[in-house]
């Protein structure tokens, strides 16, 4: 079950309008290597994990990813909420505005809608955990591109936090993988 806390995991301090940047940030809201994909992937895969440690880490990182999804949405919203249409026209956000106005929506930076095709869950904990490690690396790399694109210090600050979280998650999934493989080995000899 999920409980919602009325507070962001990380404070987001943004006071500017930047619809063009907002459209790029949406990559981590609804993109293949974004936070929604990560959260849904981990929360879906946890059912087939053979060790309690792996179940716990997928549940908890999955939950944290949804908290990150909220941070991304907040960044996007703050960058566009006060933008007049004149500031939106001529930016990549204009196409988004045509369909959604200023409302956040889960698609990637190019407008491609979020799909479950972005994730996989097999009845194979080894395959799943390698996917998760790859996902964390892809997310880290994506944050690096976004940091390069960002000209707003408040945005860059939040992106740096989120990028480091991917590094930590990678380590955790690696440890979970070691535990699952060790479990498989010990099962073999019984």
């Amino acid at each position: 079950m999920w409980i919602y806390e009325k507070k962001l995991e990380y404070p987001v301090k943004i006071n500017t309008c930047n619809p063009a940047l907002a459209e790029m940030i949406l990559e981590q809201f609804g993109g293949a290597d974004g936070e929604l994909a990560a959260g849904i992937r981990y929360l879906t895969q946890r059912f087939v994990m053979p060790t309690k440690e792996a179940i716990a880490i997928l549940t908890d990182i999955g939950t944290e990813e949804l908290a990150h999804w909220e941070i991304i949405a907040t960044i996007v919203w703050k960058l566009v909420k006060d933008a007049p249409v004149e500031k939106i026209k001529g930016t990549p956000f204009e196409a988004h505005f045509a369909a959604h106005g200023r409302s956040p929506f889960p698609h990637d930076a190019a407008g491609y809608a979020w799909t479950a095709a972005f994730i996989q869950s097999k009845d194979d904990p080894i395959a799943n955990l390698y996917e998760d490690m790859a996902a964390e690396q892809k997310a880290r790399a994506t944050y690096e591109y976004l940091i390069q694109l960002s000209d707003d210090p408040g945005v860059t600050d939040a992106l740096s936090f989120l990028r480091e979280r991917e590094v930590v998650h990678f380590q955790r999934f690696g440890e979970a993988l070691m535990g699952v493989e060790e479990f498989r080995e010990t099962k073999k000899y019984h």
Partner: protein
Amino acid sequence: MQELDYEELSREELKLQIQELEFAVIELNLFLDTHPTNQKALMDYNMFSIELNKTKNVYQKKYGPLTNFGYALSSYPWKWVESPWPWEE
């Protein structure tokens, strides 16, 4: 652990305290998930959790509940619906 009087802090300062403490707790939670027998991590998790709850209690008494579904109480009228929501701050 720094000795702070939470009652003296502003709303923003209090919120930051909560975010800092809760982040430490989350990090230790994840670490413990893959290191359940690490005693130091568990001690630190419990220590920070106690401090976190202290801070939350001060915040919630002054500014209303941070969680619902029975995790925190509310004075009248129902405070959960009140701003600021996280993206409004």
